């Protein structure tokens, strides 16, 4: 007689953005099935914005996700500007990147300290860590406050930044505020380094060790960064952003409101901080470069848990980068915040690096309205690879206490820093 197995399920993965679950089905011969169930409702963002006025659609897109609303806003606005044939001035581009860095700092700090660290320290909730890890919680709050303050100043608000518009910004902070921002970034650098040191000591589970295809946006100007017009693959291939549909192929899967993506239609792949580091570490500079060189063995391309440490490395990097970009903008002071944009018909693709990986916006504009929209988010790109890694973990631990297996499976998912709300906005076929 066959044994009777019940699926091991986490109905609702905690400490991630959005609602998703894990289901692991075990049979006589081991793990039969692993599914990441995305249970957040569908949100139809592309469909609801088609036919709408461009500026109104641009106000709505960031609402796909709060954790990376600046990423969505800036990528959507760039896609729209490309579509109508407009390019912002260098100093505006620099300040947009500073805003993006604010998002990066806040998102990474929240993820590392409040979502990831409790698992390692044996807590269900970061607030319960206060007695023993007050210092860590305070660092988390300081870093998070810095990131959200940067977004408040440059975006008008830390979540859903209405101040970013086609042609530039509605209004810019004054010079003293930017100087203060630079100073606060300098002061926060030791906190970022402490974070890197802390995360370099945490276990990266060898159960999930194996080859991974990494994809990342090739940064403009050959300096490690956020904006770029081509996608690099860790196998050496590179393609222009416009070709994303050909090489990052999406499919609907029945257990999820979010689609899965495959490299050249076949292979799951990963995107995120570790993928950026794997593909573009040669473009790092400053203290981050030193830290990378001395910790290469931990920042390896074969383990999804390395994504946590890669985020910590980026905290260091983006603080230094932010300081340089503010200097660039200050050198051109006073800056006119906004240029007139002539909204012509056209099509534009923008690819940027959101905190959790490649974000694609493709927009077609006709008569001032959105004629076509395709948005693909990092979590949607990562889902297929995430399932592979949860399976690897399950195959090693399916005989363990189910509670232990559940925790390990959740930890794999959390290492990817998924943004589930993002993934269910869902793209047109």
């Amino acid at each position, binding site marked *: 007689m066959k044994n009777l197995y019940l699926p091991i399920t986490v109905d609702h993965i905690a400490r991630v953005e959005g609602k998703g679950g894990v289901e692991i089905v075990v049979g006589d011969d081991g793990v039969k099935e692993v599914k990441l169930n995305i*249970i957040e409702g569908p949100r139809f963002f*592309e469909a609801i914005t088609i036919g709408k006025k461009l500026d109104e659609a641009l106000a709505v897109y960031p*609402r796909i996700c709060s954790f990376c609303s600046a990423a969505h806003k800036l990528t959507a606005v760039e896609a729209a500007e490309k579509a109508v044939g407009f390019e912002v001035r260098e100093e505006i581009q620099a300040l947009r990147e500073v805003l993006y860095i604010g998002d990066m700092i806040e998102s990474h700090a929240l993820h590392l300290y409040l979502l990831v660290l409790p698992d390692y320290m044996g807590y269900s909730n970061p607030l319960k860590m*206060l007695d023993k890890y007050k210092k860590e919680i305070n660092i988390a709050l300081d870093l998070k406050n810095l990131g959200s303050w940067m977004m408040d100043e440059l975006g008008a608000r830390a*979540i*859903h930044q209405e101040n970013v518009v086609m042609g530039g910004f509605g209004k810019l902070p004054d010079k003293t505020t930017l100087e203060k921002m630079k100073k606060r970034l300098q002061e926060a650098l030791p906190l970022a380094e402490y974070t890197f040191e802390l995360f370099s000591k945490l276990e990266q589970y060898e159960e999930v060790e194996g080859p991974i295809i990494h994809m990342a946006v090739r940064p403009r100007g050959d300096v490690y960064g956020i904006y770029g017009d081509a996608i690099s693959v860790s196998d050496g291939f590179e393609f222009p952003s416009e070709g994303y549909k050909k090489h990052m192929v999406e499919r609907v899967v029945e257990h999820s409101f979010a689609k899965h993506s495959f490299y050249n239609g076949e292979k799951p792949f990963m995107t995120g901080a570790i993928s950026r580091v794997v593909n573009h570490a040669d473009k790092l500079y400053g203290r981050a470069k030193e830290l990378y060189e001395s910790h290469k063995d931990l920042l390896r391309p074969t383990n999804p848990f390395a994504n946590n440490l890669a985020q910590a490395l980026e905290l260091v990097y983006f603080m230094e980068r932010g300081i340089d970009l503010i200097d660039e903008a200050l050198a051109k002071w006073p800056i006119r915040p906004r240029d007139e944009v002539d909204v012509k018909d056209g099509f534009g693709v923008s690819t940027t690096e959101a905190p959790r990986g490649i974000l694609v916006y493709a927009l077609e504009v006709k008569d001032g309205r959105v004629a076509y929209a395709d948005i693909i988010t990092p979590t949607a790109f990562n889902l297929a690879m995430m399932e592979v890694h949860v399976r690897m973990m399950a195959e090693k631990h399916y005989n363990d206490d189910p509670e232990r297996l559940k925790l390990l499976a959740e930890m794999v998912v959390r290492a990817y820093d998924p943004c589930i709300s993002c993934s269910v906005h869902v793209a047109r076929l």
Partner: protein
Amino acid sequence: MEGKVRIGFYALTSCYGCQLRFAMMDEILQLLPNAEIVCWYMLDRDSSEDEPVDIAFIEGSVSTEEEVELVKKIRENAKIVVAVGACATQGGVQSWEKDKSLEELWKAVYGDGKVKFEPKMAEPLENYIKVDYRIYGCPPEKKDFIYAIGTFLVGSWPEDIDYPVCLECRLKGNTCILIEKGEPCLGPITRAGCDARCPSYGIACIGCRGAIGYDVAWFDSLARTFKEKGLTKEEILERMKIFNAHNPKLEEMVDKVFQFQGVKE
């Protein structure tokens, strides 16, 4: 209330921005001696929707059949239910195209693909359960949370805001975006409380805090101004519906402007 106040934070379909806004408040730490957070999936693995709570904060719109059941369960387990943010109070931006059929939207996005969950068009909480209090905004302001929790903790009720963003904007001395710049600012019909955040940056209000309640949102009057500036009825409705798609007065009041030309044209 005796002992610690039991709080739950729940999410339906949303961007998680209201929870993030809440989580970004350092003031939560000051709250901990007086309150116990019983359910909050975004931060706590030990969360459960089955636990009884004194105050349930719910963000997100009801967007699947499963969420209909969930929201009823939360209501049963809670003394006070607070709808938080534009999705929970107004259906959210995902309601913008509420008049298109679900099938049409589904087909545009998923093609013939099927998933095993039951989707539905996004709706605000009050279409399914009794809501005791609302915190508005996309996302809400920090002070909205502090004010609401503070008043609950002293056993009182927070007051609603019944005046428009315009009032706060004028007090700040901003140039009027609608009258002086001719942009379609929704400040005159939108509930205040954001300190005219967007207009202060030179950006026209898109109405994220929703239309002012108590039937004092004069959609018709603003529609008339928009019409004079050359906007069509469809353009006016589109803009007003970004955050007000479920408002029962909206279409009727805008219709009036286009059907009845008035004595003086």
